């Protein structure tokens, strides 16, 4: 059974913004020390789930538009869910494995 990390601070942000962010979901696999997609386009309020399908731990970092998110240690099998509230371009990478990079465009 997969564990899920959902940053409480994000939930607060979402709640404060009064946005219904359950409108869309997207999933990104982490496998072979890479994200499954280099650029992802989502709608404002969508939740992106990053699933660690590697046999090593990761640490997702999201940055852009004044937002800085840190999943903390993401062990194998653990999913990290991040809602994207503000339109713009976000960079996503792994703090442990710098070659793992992708971008997310929020429309």
């Amino acid at each position, binding site marked *: 059974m997969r564990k899920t990390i959902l940053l409480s601070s994000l939930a607060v942000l979402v709640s404060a913004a009064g946005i219904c962010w359950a409108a869309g979901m*997207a*999933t990104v696999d982490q496998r072979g020390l890479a994200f499954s997609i280099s650029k992802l386009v989502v709608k404002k309020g969508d939740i992106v789930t990053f699933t660690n399908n590697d046999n*090593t731990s990761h640490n997702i970092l999201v940055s852009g538009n004044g937002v800085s998110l840190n999943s903390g240690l993401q062990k194998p099998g653990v999913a990290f869910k991040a809602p994207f509230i503000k339109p713009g371009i976000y960079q996503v990478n792994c703090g442990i494995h710098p070659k793992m990079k992708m971008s997310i465009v929020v429309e």
Partner: protein
Amino acid sequence: MNRVFSSLRRGQLLFAMGASFAVGICGLSIAQAQSHGNSSASTIAVMLADFRRPLNIPAPEDNPITPAKASLGKALFFDPRLSGSGAIACATCHNPALGWQDGMARGVGHHGGVLSRHTPTILNIAWSEPLFWDGRAATLEEQAKGPLSAPAEMNMPLDRAVEILRANRGYRAGFAAAFPGEPITIDTMVKAIATYQRTVISGVAPFDRWVNGEAGALPEAAKRGFVTFETKAGCAACHSGWRFTDDGFHDTGLPGDDMGRAKIMPGLPILEHAFKTPTLRNVADRAPYMHDGSLPTLEAVINHYDHGYIDRPSLSPEVRRPKLTVQEKADLVAFMQSLSSHDRNVTLPNLPR
């Protein structure tokens, strides 16, 4: 609306294709390995599929590899005149006769000063970005500027290095051939050095021959060691792929106050005392080991990961106590010895005058 961007199906397909290919060409070696390990032939085939050597050397778009650039870069790499003392070249520490390292626990720089970390090899560095033990350089070109100009290392201001090169007729010709129509600058200097470094690649080792289907390329102990490396010992969690590195940063539980990657990327506790995973290619010929050069032998490294590390909050979750047997440790050493390619001697360049 539910949009799922998953590469699972594509990944599964590639995985299956890789496994099939490996089974097809490695049938004999897998049968041999099967009788000496705890893993099935199909499992070993899947493992081996991750270790195929690449066909091309990566290079940035604005600095493609050319013979003229590599030749110029080689001269620069071996030229001690590019140091403040006139006595230290890149190759002084990255000595091809010593596995492109220096054989010492910690590097020695300007006026004999001992540096704070072990000299890493430049073998296969074309694939190894970001560079340095703490990953502070994103590219090889950026990395080349560091040791040249660092007061504790080569102690050569980069502008002064360019002046020296511009005053040298041989270098002027070399740069003209490598960078037609461009002046000699810091940028072209480090591009040439980086290009040469990208050509420093470990040759085919017995392990590669085994991956390619030559059953007799490895002793049985090394085959068992490979399975232990991939499974019980957990080494492959970080030492993955054909270079045996994830190019990631991990706290391996060594003592000391060097914060490593955390100084470059503060705010992530897991990066405290974390250093870049080194390649294991030719590792048996590159003692001593670790970022501080504190472990003199492969046996000492295995014992460190087996029970010798410091358990602290930043310790990598991949470091675990595998409780290896004496036989398993010996097998791991045999496996790592199979990664040595015993490359041809490197010829020294005649330095431009």
